[in-house]
């Protein structure tokens, strides 16, 4: 059995070496597509983290009508908590808000009655939840129509749109490249089949099993995918280092966590390998019209 495995692996390695240009094209395209896919995915996650870290971006302040009693307040809090897109609700009693204001600005608050109404501090789950949650809050009778619901609407829209563009554009470009990489792997295997048709014929003449005939091509495609995936992880590592150096040169006070190189290599290598296996299987399964 070990001899047979050694033989099929040997055949696959010979094919990878002899089919150098197509192998290089397939590996580099897999690497670039996974670099974009992984890089944009990583950048997107970092951007989402960054958006979450900006104070107030996910917060809404909701002011209640003057004179709303405690039971109405607790009833409203329960209703708000049940709204889709709401992560948390905190009641801010008017006395607490006024005490804070007086502490922060004693000169302008002396001798004035508390003008604050009771309020809620609401945190939403996603930036895109801001408008629908605000619309539903405005329909509640306990909410004061003016100022009612206060939140960073324009900033939320801007960040949300930015993330959306990043997500869809990244997905589109990476998918296109990923598809191209698949076509290249498929073609590389087809080319190998054409180059090695004499070997295939000999194997068939002497009665080699289907496993022996076909598996080298599957190994070849899988290796191309794995190599492309691992190279893309190294490219991501390099890109993050360049980006960090750029930020340090700018003296920017942004904290970016260390790049998980080994984890990325494992994930991207597995994705590349699985994709390479799929494309090579398709190449082996479809008839070779040239033959």
């Amino acid at each position, binding site marked *: 059995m070990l*001899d047979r495995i050694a033989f099929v692996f040997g055949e696959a390695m010979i094919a990878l070496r002899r089919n150098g240009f197509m192998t290089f094209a397939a590996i580099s395209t897999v690497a670039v597509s996974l670099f974009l896919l992984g890089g944009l995915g990583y950048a997107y996650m970092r951007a989402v983290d960054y958006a979450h870290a900006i104070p107030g971006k996910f917060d809404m302040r909701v002011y209640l009508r003057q004179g709303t009693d405690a039971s109405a307040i607790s009833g409203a809090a329960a209703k708000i908590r049940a709204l889709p897109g709401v992560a948390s609700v905190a009641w801010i009693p008017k006395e607490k808000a006024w005490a804070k204001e007086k502490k922060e600005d004693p000169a302008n608050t002396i001798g004035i009655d508390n003008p604050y109404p009771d309020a809620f501090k609401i945190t939403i789950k996603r930036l895109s939840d801001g408008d629908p949650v605000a619309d539903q809050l405005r329909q509640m009778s306990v909410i004061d129509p003016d100022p009612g619901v206060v939140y960073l609407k324009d900033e939320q829209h801007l960040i949300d749109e930015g993330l959306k563009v990043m997500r869809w554009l990244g997905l589109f470009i990476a998918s296109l490249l990923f598809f191209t990489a698949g076509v290249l792997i498929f073609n590389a295997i087809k080319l190998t089949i054409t180059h090695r048709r004499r070997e295939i014929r*000999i194997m068939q003449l*002497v*009665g*080699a*099993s*289907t496993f022996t005939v076909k598996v080298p091509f599957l190994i070849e495609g899988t290796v191309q995918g794995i190599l492309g995936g691992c190279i893309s992880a190294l490219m991501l590592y390099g890109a993050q280092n360049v980006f960090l150096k750029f930020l340090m040169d700018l003296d920017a006070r942004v904290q970016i966590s260390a790049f998980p190189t080994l984890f990325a290599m494992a994930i991207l290598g597995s994705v590349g390998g699985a994709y390479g296996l799929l494309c090579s299987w398709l190449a082996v399964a479809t008839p070779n019209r040239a033959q």
Partner: protein
Amino acid sequence: MEYPGYVTGLRDVSLQINKGDFVFFVGKTGAGKSTLIKLLTREVSHTQGIVTLDGRDLGRIREREIPGLRREMGIVPQDFALLPRKRVWENVAYAMRAVGHSRTEVRRKVPAILDSVNIGHRADAFPHQLSGGEQQRVAIARALINNPQLLIADEPTGNLDAVRSWEIMELLKSLNLKGTTVLVASHDEMVIHRMARRIVTLEAGAIVSDSANEEAKPDA
């Protein structure tokens, strides 16, 4: 037997070959010689009738059983099908490795196989350094790796001069004398008649004569 597009390869063919026979299939190009061979190697399937090999209906064997069937026979193709970048011994070793022989077995058996077809002295040569006859010997050596009871050769002398053709025929005859059944498709009439073996003549997909039947006929 019909090819796709209703092209008839063989029709009304009834033939029995016994173990240990040496049979020539002769006929012009397109007569059906190669089709007859391909039916035995299961490169094509018959559309009507029955083809049996050693009591087994070849029409009933499954796709995945074909490699097993081929390991029971040795096939010598018309074009030799040698790997140009491999030496003589590597060509045979490659085929052995492909069917699952270990490296140790290959090292042990290859010299003996090459010697059995008188090509051992050229073991380190590349195919392009060999004559046509020598290349044919290598192809025959490769066909012997599974120690087959049946050897099938398609036009084995097609690319050889008279002297080399006769050498190949002598080699096939010696294998036959050791008990191997040999089937040869050929149109080399001079060699065929000199060999004085059973001759099955095909024309337009049908058998028009079989020397075995003629010999059996009582003298008029």
